[in-house]
């Protein structure tokens, strides 16, 4: 099928009654969602094309890379930095166990960054191979939607190529937003933070979400002085309040300077670094100022309005339960739809899309009981309802079981950092509505708990499971006494 070339910017008239398309599916964006949807659709026999911006660790409107945010400037490099930072306190703890180490152990940020980059480049290559192995055709360039069945790719050499597709999938993800604070150009976002030349000695972070909290832990773990400024009383709004308090306490315990109910009003460049003013009149000096104040969907340059695709007020593509937009042949998944912005959810959306459109099995992604983790040090992981949500939603009483203890490892190292684990149970049905944990290995522990919760496991079922000893996880199956019982109908107090 001949491709149409744009000559002098004029689009050739489309053929009438075109029933044959260049592709059954054309995907714009080769991140977690896009790659999953492409591969699985191809496995169902679809002819798939996908386009992605050229690769670079730091994204712009026209730079990205196969693998997307998760692989290049999200989950993966973040976890690598968390590992790097965690060693700091581990090495301190080793002394209590008899290890003789120098007073100061050197940390080479550049070496870590180099290895991080090697790894993301390697993964980028793997993702390209995965697409090739699945028979998906990859185009490098910026994709735009031209019509209900037409996309246009602006290639690197400037030429534009357009393709017809029975279905179009938008999976362009999101990017960090920068608040309009005077001097904002002096600040960086998470993209740059994951690729800094030098480890900052002093860092100021604006934001209360998981990205802000994770970077606070990372830089503090590497020895930097860190000031964390956030709007609410506690970081991690939306999470269980008790757990938010634990995270805040831990950050403080590790030496992060916490500034609740604070925002920044101005950034000024000085000889000694960036002078940061807060709305409390405080002045901080920083080598690096990180804005971690949210991410916005990447929809500006896709030409969506021209095609009539509906967006919400944040610029996210509106979709139905099957990830279909208001244009029947156009779909969207992942962060660009701003539903649950997690890689495994994008994967789920991509899988369901492929099943629905090419697998003849209409499948809706299920957003209930999606577990997630915040990789602060120590990490937080949750699944199901927070205590506040449970009180709000449950018909009957809500029972809360908690276990707070200093993990065994700390007893010898002398570290005072309590692990908190919590189960929220429906008093009527005995179903476990939510589980959360803040402590070492929380994310690894919660995964299995999530399977049980998703399937409606009761507290009795948890209790009838024998523990593994000695572990932290066994606490989840040995919580015998109720910490508190909240009677049905009690009003909630959200922070």
């Amino acid at each position, binding site marked *: 099928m001949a491709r149409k070339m744009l000559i002098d910017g004029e689009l050739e008239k489309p053929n009438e009654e075109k029933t044959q398309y260049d592709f059954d599916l054309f995907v714009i964006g080769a991140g977690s969602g896009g790659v999953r949807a492409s591969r699985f659709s191809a496995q169902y026999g679809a002819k798939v094309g996908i386009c992605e911006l050229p690769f670079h660790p730091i994204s712009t409107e026209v730079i990205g890379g196969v693998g997307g945010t998760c692989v290049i400037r999200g989950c993966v490099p973040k976890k690598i930095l968390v590992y790097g930072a965690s060693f700091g306190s581990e090495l301190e703890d080793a002394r209590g166990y008899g*290890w003789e180490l120098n007073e100061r152990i050197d940390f080479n940020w550049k070496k870590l960054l180099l290895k991080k980059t090697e790894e993301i480049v390697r993964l980028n290559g793997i993702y390209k191979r995965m697409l090739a192995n699945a028979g998906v055709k990859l185009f490098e360039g910026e994709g735009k939607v031209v019509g209900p069945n037409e996309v246009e790719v602006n290639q690197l050499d400037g030429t534009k190529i357009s393709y017809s597709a029975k279905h179009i999938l938008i999976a362009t993800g999101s990017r960090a937003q920068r608040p309009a604070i005077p001097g904002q150009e002096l600040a960086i976002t998470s993209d740059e933070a994951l690729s800094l030349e030098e480890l900052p000695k002093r860092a100021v972070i604006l934001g209360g979400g998981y990205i802000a909290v994770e970077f606070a832990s990372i830089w503090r773990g590497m020895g930097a002085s860190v000031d964390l400024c956030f709007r609410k009383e506690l970081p991690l709004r939306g999470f269980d309040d008790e757990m938010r308090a634990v995270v805040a306490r831990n950050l403080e315990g590790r030496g992060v300077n916490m500034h609740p109910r604070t925002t920044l009003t101005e950034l000024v460049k000085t000889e000694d670094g960036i002078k940061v003013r807060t709305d409390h009149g405080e002045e901080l000096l920083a080598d690096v100022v990180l804005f971690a104040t949210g991410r916005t969907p990447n929809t500006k340059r896709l030409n969506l309005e021209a095609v009539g695709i509906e967006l919400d007020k944040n610029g996210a593509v509106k979709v139905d339960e099957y990830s279909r937009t208001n244009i029947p042949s156009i779909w969207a998944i992942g962060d660009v739809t701003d539903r649950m912005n997690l890689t495994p959810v994008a*994967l789920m959306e991509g899988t369901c899309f492929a099943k629905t459109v090419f697998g003849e099995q209409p499948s809706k992604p299920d957003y209930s009981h999606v577990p997630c983790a915040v990789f602060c040090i120590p990490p937080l992981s949750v699944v199901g309802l927070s205590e506040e949500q449970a009180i709000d939603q449950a018909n009957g009483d809500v029972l809360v079981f908690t276990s707070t203890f200093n993990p065994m490892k700390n007893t010898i190292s002398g570290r005072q950092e309590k692990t908190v684990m919590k189960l929220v149970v429906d008093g009527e049905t005995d179903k476990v509505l939510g589980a959360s944990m803040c402590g070492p290995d929380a994310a690894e522990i*919660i995964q299995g708990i*999530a399977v*049980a919760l998703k399937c409606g496991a009761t507290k009795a079922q948890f209790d009838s499971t024998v523990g*593994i000893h000695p572990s932290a996880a066994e606490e989840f199956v040995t919580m015998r006494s109720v910490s508190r019982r909240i009677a049905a109908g009690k009003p909630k107090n959200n922070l």
Partner: protein
Amino acid sequence: NVNIIEFLGKWGQAIARARCAFAIMLHLNEGRFWATWRCVLRGCVPKKLLVYASKYSHEFEESCGFGWKYAAEPEHDWSTLIANKNAEIQRLTGIYKSTLKNAGVELIEGRGKIVDPHTVDVDGKLYSAKNILISVGGRPFIPDIPGSEYVVDSDAALDLPSKPKKIAIVGGGYIAVEFAGIFNGLQSDVHVFIRQKKVLRGFDEEIRDFVGEQMLLRGIEIHTEQSPQAIIKSSDGSLSLKTNKGTIDGFSHIMFATGRKPNTKNLGLESVGVKLKENGAIEVDEYSQTSVPSIWAVGDVTDRINLTPVALMEGGALAKTLFANKPTKPEYRAVPSAVFSQPPIGQVGLTEEQAIKEYGDVDVYTANFRPLKATLSGLPDRIFMKLIACAKTDKVLGLHICGEDSPEIIQGFAVAVKAGLTKADFDATVGIHPTAAEELVTMRTPTRKLRRTPSEGKTDSEFKAAAGV
């Protein structure tokens, strides 16, 4: 008339929590004035602390790949570790004693012996009891071979005066494998001698292969198909181990981890009529009652599943049966367990071999991958995971993992397996990213599908599966 429980171990805690009036006696172990709570003093707890200590050498290596640099190679001081370990154990002992006290349990220190179905003798003083519970646990078994007096068992290994330079560990079970990891991590030269071809008999075969490989990669030498015959001490104090295959010299220590036997000698059991099994374990029914109606037994002394949480379960069930008017049987299906080798193992449910035997048609999913940490550290660490599902009902029959954090990972999945959840339930659960655990909910393609060909005279596996077993 007091309810007396002859107490040793953690299940006593479970009994205590049942809030009844009890008296407890402590069994002294060869004159040492410790309460010999196995788990806290000589088992799980000190073992785990030593594992933590020994893991650091691997972490130092790992950290180099993440940019950490050491001016000098970190060195380990054994005496600091043992002193801190003992301080912690003392602290825990104090806590356990308080727990008993707060529960209203009377603690009597002394050597207990049963006189008749309702009488116990503690160092000459007699106490009458409505019920007697025996929970004296087990102790290491060392075969009676020439030179066995030079051998250390796990008790002694946890309290050595100095770190072994070169140690021979005889045994292939979890204790041998855990100590091999401990001493290897603390920079001793470690040699393991096993009778079989692989360590950890009874575990899933692929796990046995995998952990064996990983142990070799860490520098542990495993000598297979060898049976110990004698230990010879030389004039310079070093020890030699003679096996059926030859003699190896130069060991500073030889440790035997060759099994544990129930502690039933000198308790007066035979005279009162309590039936024992061949290995000395006390025979009990499903309610932990012995052949004498007023005498009960739980924990390692009954040699059922010798794990602390199982002992807790048995103790808790007994308390309910005796005093809460709720006859309760401990449930042994899908009991998860861990081996704190390096890397550690976590498992729940059936091995592949057991699953094939019981269910016939099974689907096996495996993953063998390098975790993210290892791609940066450059070390040959890997993780192995296996999920076994019944082909007929899709129920998850067994899970086996070997790799960093396996024990912590398995716990939550054990709830799912115990609840009878299916592979589809696993697959419907969204992963947590990035973790190792998420692999278990993203295994799409079976590595192998095993279908038993119909054979004469054997139980029809399909029939069994259909019956919901």
